[in-house]
């Protein structure tokens, strides 16, 4: 068991995540400009497109080695917003829920499950930070 493998992987790919997301945002903005004037429905859809871009950026930054990022990348191909963790509202058995949803059909050993969870949280918080900064700079 490598010690460094337990680091929980403090997101060195944050730049990639930010770049990917900004690129997607620019593309979404271009699409929106073509369809002016924007309807209310268009704005709601825009929010969902941005959400998809957010999860795509996270998954790209994490790479295909993570079960959760693979789940997102496959889910995006099927054109749905994939939230690999916590799709069920009721937590009857938190362990099973995390395991089932996070690892799909794969058997996941508890240590791997914890590590995947840590990594997912790291990327999620990074994404929140990225989006917050962009929102702040767009407000100026």
């Amino acid at each position, binding site marked *: 068991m490598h010690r460094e493998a337990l680091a929980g992987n403090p997101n060195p790919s944050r730049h990639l995540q930010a770049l990917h997301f*900004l690129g997607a945002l620019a593309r979404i903005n271009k699409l929106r400009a073509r369809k002016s004037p924007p309807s209310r429905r268009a704005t709601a859809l825009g929010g969902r497109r941005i959400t998809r871009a957010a999860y795509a950026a996270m998954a790209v930054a994490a790479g295909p080695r993570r079960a959760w990022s693979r789940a997102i990348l496959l889910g995006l191909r099927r054109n749905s917003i994939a939230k690999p963790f916590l799709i069920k509202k009721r937590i009857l058995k938190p362990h099973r829920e995390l395991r089932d949803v996070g690892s799909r059909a794969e058997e996941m050993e508890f240590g791997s499950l914890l590590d995947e969870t840590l990594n997912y949280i790291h990327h999620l918080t990074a994404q929140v930070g990225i*989006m917050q900064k962009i929102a702040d700079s767009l407000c100026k």
Partner: protein
Amino acid sequence: MSSAWTGRARATDDDIKELVAKLQSLLPEARRRSSGRTSAAKLLKETCSYIKSLQREVDDLSDRLSDLISAMDDNSAQAEIIRSLLS
């Protein structure tokens, strides 16, 4: 952590302790039990709640960004995005 993990031997108890400690340190202050012992089930439940709240934040920020971008004209939105890239 690389995917090589899943191919290796099971995590030892120490490994699991370390991961659990890391997870606990990530959870927001209000959710941490000051009285020390947290059952695995509680920790996982709180982790689920935390992840859910983060996902909600992403949704909310997405809506906010959508509004902000559509409120700007095309050129300045692109400019702002590029500016974010450079800063």
